[in-house]
């Protein structure tokens, strides 16, 4: 399998160009080029430490990428436009506006434990979108309904299961009406019986046309929901292909083959 790199198209929602990121002298990402189209679901898979989280975090500038570009609808994320070196960060307010359009869901949920589910979702609606308290609560309730948690609105996170907490976290992100949703192993911290309810919500979002970039170890989800699957290894994008090419037949790249082999072995036992 050769690395497929779609040429830049007008309708690409996110376009990553030759992006690299190092931590001190450790190169976590190297020359990543990747387009995500509108309503597309791209799953990122790869061994632990291959740079999946770092790639995701560069997309919303939680990590400042070193070289290359990340663009959302054409707008450069995090760095000021222009060729001046070293690049300068955009103003804090600009970055906040950019991030509003990029929803993110974490492995550890990261809900604010002192606020109720409803307050978790409504906070940014009030503070960032500037909605009045009542309008914010209505919008928050609508978001909670989308993740099937209308009846848990008044619960604090301590009184929610892991799966419910993750769904509140998803509601918190989608309430901002982002252009794209980033998921970093959203089900990895969950007990096995709770994984399904989160994946169901994600499938529903995909079906509604949400653009999604999903780091996951759920190969079933990648195989059935993703439009394309990206395989990362040692900070490099090794393969970017439709799931059928990766899961449907024996992959050409030995790194992908051996990675998937570990999953097959586990399922067989």
């Amino acid at each position: 399998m050769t690395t497929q790199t779609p040429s830049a198209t007008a309708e690409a929602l996110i376009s990553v160009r030759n992006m690299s990121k190092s931590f001190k002298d450790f190169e976590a990402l190297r020359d990543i080029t990747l387009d995500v189209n509108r309503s597309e679901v791209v799953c990122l898979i790869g061994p632990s430490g291959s740079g999946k989280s770092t790639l995701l975090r560069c997309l919303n500038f939680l990590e400042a990428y070193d070289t290359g570009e990340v663009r959302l609808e054409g707008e450069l994320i995090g760095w000021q436009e222009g060729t001046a070196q070293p690049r300068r960060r955009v103003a804090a307010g600009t970055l906040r506006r950019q991030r509003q359009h990029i929803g993110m869901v974490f492995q550890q949920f990261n809900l604010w434990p002192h606020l109720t589910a409803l307050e978790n979702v409504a906070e940014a609606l009030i503070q960032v979108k500037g909605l009045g308290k009542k309008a914010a609560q209505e919008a928050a309730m609508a978001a909670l309904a989308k993740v099937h948690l209308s009846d848990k609105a008044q619960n604090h996170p301590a009184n929610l299961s892991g799966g419910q907490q993750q769904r509140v976290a998803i509601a918190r992100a989608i309430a901002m009406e982002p252009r794209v949703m980033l998921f970093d192993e959203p089900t990895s911290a969950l007990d096995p019986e709770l994984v399904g309810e989160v994946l169901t919500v994600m499938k529903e979002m995909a079906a509604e046309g949400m653009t999604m970039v999903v780091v996951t170890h759920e190969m079933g989800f990648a195989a059935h929901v993703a439009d394309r699957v990206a395989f990362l290894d040692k900070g490099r994008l090794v393969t970017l292909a439709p799931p059928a090419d990766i899961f449907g037949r024996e992959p050409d790249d030995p790194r992908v083959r051996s990675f998937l082999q570990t999953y097959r072995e586990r399922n067989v036992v």
Partner: protein
Amino acid sequence: MELDLFVRYGPDLLRGFGVTILCWIAGSLGGLVLGFAIACLYRWSIRPVRWVIEGYVELIRGTPFMIQLFILYYGGPYMGLVLTPVQAGIISFVVYGSPYFAEIFRSGFNAVPKGQIEAARCVGLSEARIMRRIILPQMLVPITAPLTNFIIILSKETAILSVVTVPELLYETQTMAAETFTYIEPFLVLSLFYWLMVIVTSWLGGRVEARVTRHLKRT
């Protein structure tokens, strides 16, 4: 026990107690505010500013309170800073307490998981809003006990203010003792006053702690 002594000196003792309370509360509140400002500055500033802050913290924590008070009260006039004893007492209290408060706040900031702050940034909340809505309410849980503790310690440090003739509780008690040649009773009463401040403070601290940990209880 010679009750008439207390009738005679009672008003002075009460006034002294009032001055002690004033210096203690004004000093603690000022120290809290300055300490919080220092902790915030440390959190958001570039490295050289951090070094200055670290130096300040080390300097103040590394010298006895009494020396700081002397320098401010007796040394101040040489720098054009003439203060009344009470003013010098309150200001030196603010300065003395601030690095300890700052360290408590700093540990409080660090107690809030980084992921929660990242989640807040991801939805576009501003740093000031994150501090007010996400960090502050949660850091109250781990910092209430150490804050209460330090404020209790400060309540007794007020006694040192007597060395620059602040007419606080110890000063008045010593005056009474010297003029009447009684020692046991005045100092028992003095202890009673300090003890009163301590139990009220720890009771308040307990109430605050109960209030801020409410949400952690599973129902």
